[in-house]
């Protein structure tokens, strides 16, 4: 499985990559900002996308739009955000996110949700 993980927090990227590899969830590609994420999405195919909402250049919501509307793909998308506002969550689901986790989050829970989504 190939996962794209997008967040502007380097330490979190490294930690989640470590955890997902430890849980044998496949290759994890890291993107530090929205621009990098969109570039990777255009160059490679992914089985799952995990993205923060607030990032430089393009937000997580724009990434969902890019995958669903521009690329017309059904790749599962999980959104992570420190902002758990109802409107943001609803907006993410409306435009095509499959799951939403609020920060702080449990990496073990993230693993379980990934396994459930990709099954």
């Amino acid at each position, binding site marked *: 499985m190939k996962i794209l993980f997008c967040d502007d*927090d*380097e*330490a*979190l990227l*490294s*930690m989640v990559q*470590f*955890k997902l590899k*430890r849980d044998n969830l496949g290759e994890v590609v890291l993107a530090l900002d929205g621009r990098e994420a969109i570039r990777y999405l255009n160059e490679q195919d992914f089985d799952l996308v995990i993205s923060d909402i607030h990032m430089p250049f393009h937000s997580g919501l724009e990434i969902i739009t890019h995958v669903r509307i521009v690329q017309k793909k059904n790749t599962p998308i999980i959104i992570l955000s*420190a902002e758990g506002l109802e409107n943001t969550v609803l907006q993410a689901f409306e435009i095509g996110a499959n799951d939403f986790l609020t*920060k*702080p*989050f*449990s*990496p*073990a*829970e993230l693993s379980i949700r990934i396994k459930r989504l990709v099954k």
Partner: protein
Amino acid sequence: MTGWIDRITGLSQPSQFFVWLILVLLFVSGLLVMFILISRLIKNYTSLQNRQRILFFQPLLNALVFMDSEEEIKTAEELKLLQGQLDSSSAKQLLMEQLKNLKRNLTGSPSTNIDFLFQALSLDRYALRKLHQGLHWKTRAEAIQELSIFSVRSAIPAIQKYITAENRTVQEEALMALIRLDLESSLAFLDSYTAQVSPWMRIRIHHHLSKMNARALPLFSQWMDHPVVDVSLFSISMARQFRQLSAVPLLIKIIQGNDKIKIGPSIRALGEIGAHEAVDAVISIVDKYWSDRKISLRIVKCLGELGHQPNHLAAVVKFLSHPEYVVRLQAARALMVLQPNELAKQTQLSIAGIVRHVQEPLLQS
């Protein structure tokens, strides 16, 4: 060189003065430029060193944070490697920032492991040293925050000394830290708390407490009679926000007393908690505070929220002839909710505009 000096001394006095002035200014600006360049080099070197440290720490932290038990962490090679790198304050501070960042993003066993790591790496002792020996208030406030973020309960006695600190920020950080760390003692430190509780602190505390299980919260009514007014107001506000019904009898007692500062907030609390049994007590003070705009406003709003009998309605109608406009407007709004037909019957010219305003469909929320 001496030729130049001879040439300068051969000039007239004013010209000499200007030449020397220019030379001195050139020399000083040269020094300034050198200083800026050197400090830039040092800064770049420090940034590079910090970056290398971060890249070294991160894989070790990744491994330690996901270990299954504290025993495993204690004996891990990664812990020894980290300890070996913490030979300076800057390294310790850098690692602390990384741990803080991870703690902000993670919950569950990784978060617990981070707390354990903080103490295993003796960073708690470093934070305590910063707290006791830090010269600047920012250092102390930062140290208090760090001790509370990483749940160092043994630091509670040390932090308690700072709730009466001269510096406001240190005071507020200490209060916040005690609330985070001492909740098991049900905020017992408030019994002897003598400093102020600012509105901003109330918001922070409420934000923190609202993440906890409501059943684990202490009963805020125990501090409503506190000698420090800020603490009483704070406890009334918390009882309101967490809808503690057990506070209602004491709130009724407060509104029947003479402490005007507490009466308004107490009436508001009764209204928002939904204390219908308190309506008669609220009506009993209508005449007493008729000329007090703020309290009258609170009373009529509370009656609008809780009124359910004819005498409650009559009290609200009475407020339609209050001398203050805002009170009359609030009374009209309250009637709109309680008994719209009664509002429509009010044909006095003095409130015709208010009635039209309140009945305007576009202004309904």
